[in-house]
């Protein structure tokens, strides 16, 4: 990030006179394909959104497909037909995913090819310890205050496991807001290559600690609430820790989504990279049908002066 800032600063003259121009081009026809999006977790109803692929310059058509037929199969056996509600959503009336079960979604529509997707619900994470340390690092380069979130958990050695971590802060009656992962000295998180992309959720696998009890420690950035008599203080807040077990499909989709969206951005120095085709596990279509097992904990921070 700093190099980019630097290059921008030394090339300010160049930038000030370079220019952008809108282009008009003819686009090829696109295939007719359905788009299905569904994340499902135990003890929640299935909620599937069905849409369709649009041409990039189509600003009038709706993404939503309202009259599709959506069936869910549990471990290969028909379980329930989803009912359309609104805004493209199809919801199960009673069916809730169970841990370890395999679910298949079949969507049919006369104007589109039939689509199929399958995933398995992962088991919850066995968290052994979870705490945070306030103000462990002040980075003058970033002009930011960093605090530690520490989680010790036990990985299941029998299979490859995938995890997702995201953090939210809730101060008093305000709605919670998400934190980004800007810095981490944790090797596993660094190995994802996502830290530099400032994601609001980070996904990783147990490739580097398979079967072990792993101590995950990473920074989150939260600036102080102000000063009282020149003393820095932090108002009380809740740190909401979402630490989910996720499936391989969930992991890949999230990873590619972060990179895909970043890749859509561009700047004068980076140009625009080779496009990243979005991951999908939908046969004959686009989107995602992936399972996760959520775990949410709330850690409370009382009003404090800088306790560094």
């Amino acid at each position, binding site marked *: 990030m700093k190099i980019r800032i630097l290059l921008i600063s030394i090339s300010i003259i160049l930038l000030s006179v370079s220019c952008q121009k809108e282009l008009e081009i003819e686009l090829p026809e696109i295939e007719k394909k359905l788009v299905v999006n569904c994340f499902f977790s135990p003890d929640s109803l299935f909620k599937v959104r069905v849409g369709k692929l649009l041409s990039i310059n*189509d600003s009038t058509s709706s993404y939503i497909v309202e009259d599709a037929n959506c069936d869910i199969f549990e471990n290969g056996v028909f379980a329930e037909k989803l009912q359309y509600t609104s805004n493209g959503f199809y919801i199960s009336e009673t069916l809730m995913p169970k841990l370890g079960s395999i679910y298949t979604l079949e969507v049919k529509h006369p104007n589109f090819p039939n689509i199929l997707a399958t995933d398995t619900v992962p088991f919850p994470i066995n968290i052994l310890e979870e705490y945070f340390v306030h103000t462990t690092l002040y980075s003058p380069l970033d002009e930011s205050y960093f605090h530690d979130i520490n989680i010790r958990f036990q990985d299941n050695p029998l299979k490859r496991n995938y995890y997702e971590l995201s953090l939210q802060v809730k101060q008093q009656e305000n709605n919670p807001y998400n934190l980004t992962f800007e810095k981490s000295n944790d090797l596993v998180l660094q*190995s994802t290559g996502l830290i530099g992309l400032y994601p609001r959720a980070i996904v990783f696998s147990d490739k580097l600690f398979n079967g072990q009890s792993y101590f995950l420690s990473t920074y989150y950035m939260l600036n102080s609430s102000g000063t009282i008599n020149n003393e820095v203080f932090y108002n009380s807040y809740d740190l909401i820790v*979402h630490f989910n077990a996720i499936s391989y499909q969930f992991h890949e989709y999230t990873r*590619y*989504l972060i*990179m895909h969206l970043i890749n859509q951005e561009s700047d004068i120095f980076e140009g625009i990279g080779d496009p990243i*085709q979005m991951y999908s596990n939908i046969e004959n279509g686009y*989107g995602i049908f992936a399972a996760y097992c959520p775990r949410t904990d709330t850690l409370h921070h009382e009003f404090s002066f800088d306790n*560094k």
Partner: protein
Amino acid sequence: MKTKLLLLTIILPISLFSQNITISGYISDAETGEKIISAIIHHENSKNNVLSNNFGFYSLQIKKEDSLKITVFCVGYKTQNIIIPTKNINNINFKLISNNKIEEVIVSANIPINKRIETSVLEIPVNQLNKIPAVGSEPDIMKAFQLMPGVQSGNEGNSGLFVRGGGSDENLILLDDVPLYYVNHLGGFVSVFNSDAIKKVSLIKGGFPARYGGRLSSIMDVRMKEGNDKEYHGNISLGIITSKFSLEGPIKKDESSFLISGRALVWGLLVQPLTSLVSNASVGYNFYDLNAKFNHKINDKNNLFFSFYKGDDNVIVKYKDKDFSGNNVVANNILRWGNTLFAGRWNHVFNPRLFSNLTLSYTKYRYDSSVDYNDKTENQEYSLNFITAINDIILKSDFEYNISSKYKIRFGSNSVYHHFQPGFSYYKLNSPDISEIDTTYGYSDIYAPETTLYLENEFRLGKIFSGNIGIHASYYYIENTAFFSPEPRILLNFLTSKSSSIKLSYTQMQQKVHLLTRNTASSPMDVWIPSTSNLPPSNSKQYAVSFNKSIAKNNAELSIEAYYKTSDNLIAYKEGATYRTISNSWIDKLETQGKGTSYGIELLLQKKQGKLTGWIGYTYAKTDRQFTNLNFGNPYPFKYDRRHDISIVAMYNINSKIDISANWVYGSGYAYTLPIGKYEAVSNGNTNIHYFNSGDIWYDEIILTYADRNKSRMRAYHRMDLAVNMRKQKKHGIRTLTFSIYNVYNRQNPYYYYTKVKDSEVKLFQQSLFPIVPSISYSLKF
């Protein structure tokens, strides 16, 4: 096929050998003592011509009964005729007098193109290089070659070379016979070569002689000046990009000399204090190049040379402030990348027919980033360093044996000890609150020896047939795996008339190092990785046929060349992979075993002599890549595939004080991947994958789908540049003022395309880079 080649290489020396007397020596500039490359030594009786080699050495065989009338000529020098009264002589050193004192020494081959035993060779005399209009009036050999047929520049402003469909890492860049791994400054806008220190440069695109190897697509051979061994001279110049100086002179007159030349981005140094005035953080960037050469003549048979080059780019961010507790904290973030090169060379003349060159050298490229944070009050320290490098120690021997006036062999060996540092990080944390951390992680160093042997047979049979047939064989050993690669090299030249010829060539090349880099302008981090059992060396085969004609009494030359090249075992990043993503092996991040195909036709009409010089070049080319996991396994156009490319470069000397120059380039559009479709993505309400929108459960993002990879084309690129050089004899030397204008008619050329939402629609936009850029530079040569 290979057996026949081997037999040919053995039989030819025997069949062509005959008894002659041999005269040898050096050709040098009378004023500076600088050895002259590619001067022609012509024997009147036999009409035989030989060229001085890269060290100015020549060897000429003459029949005993012939008279000894010899003519030596070279473009830019007065011709020297000599009739030697006695035949009891075997060493003659010629000193040529320059035609024009106000000009740079002109070095150029002037054997007619149809008679030269080489093909696909591009050469730009250094004096022309300094006249070609350039951004910031900064002469740049890489950018000059980008104006030649068969060579693409990649993105605008980039100094990279993409030769006949090859990648930017497929060029062997040699500085005094030693490879340089990184050749860019300022994110690619300036190359590392300081034209003040350069004596000769050539680029070989095909028909590679057997003495070269190690890369798939091209060889760029850069020779540094040796330094004036008669008197002291220097040069200083100020430009809007760099400032330069050079100094050369004798250490002992006629025996030893030195050259030292430096170049730096000076205004970058000023940025740091200025930024510190407006912020607690000061940000600075600079780069420099330092070239030095020492040359010592022991006697007529022995010469010693020492070459040195060091160049670095530096990005420095410093921060001083008080933290929230009022403690003084200091933080530094430093990025450095560049090359270091040493070479010691010994030229030895065993006898008038056998010339040798022994070189011991070291070359290193490294990228180093470090972050240091220090809070002395709290006794807290934090540092994180990342280093990647490649280090080579090279022992190279080359022999040139002139068996007869029609037959010469070159042979030699090249032993390289590669030391790869693919990248590791060093992290240290000292703090009273946290247990000390001191750890290193990343990839282990890798060592790989490589040995190469080569043999070239350069011959002339009768009046119409000549050629160079050779073999380049390498042995490479890494992590218990050995690779052996015999690479035949064939070049045949058939004279079709006194002024024209047809040349045929076939070459195989192998490359054992691969570059991981982003194909964008800004990335300073190049990571070189070795071939291994999982990542076998890349190979290429190239066939070329050319028609060559010398025209206008050898004042100009025309070549039309067609080529077909295939490559295998190419690599590319997997979609979405980045180098710093840690995994068990970098192989996890790469698509391997890719294939490449490239073919095209190139036309070059070049005029190297007279008041008007320059060239017209045209290229028609097509380049594809194919990887199993990219583009659904189907071939797709290479990113820098360009169908048509035209360049017109003209330099005109109005008189000895003023010259003007202009160039115009046109290139059809580069390939890019066009987004054609879109759909909504939905992320989990608990995870808020990218954007947070409180109160909702579902959050929408727009995902793009793409047409086939690189199937679409950007708009065409074209541009005109102008320059004028005005020289004046001053009291202390010759002053040159250069005015140049880049992109005269302010064409908005495509740099890249991107999409963005405008008026609720996703639209395609073009980003341009350089508008019209006027510049001025000043230099004083004394």
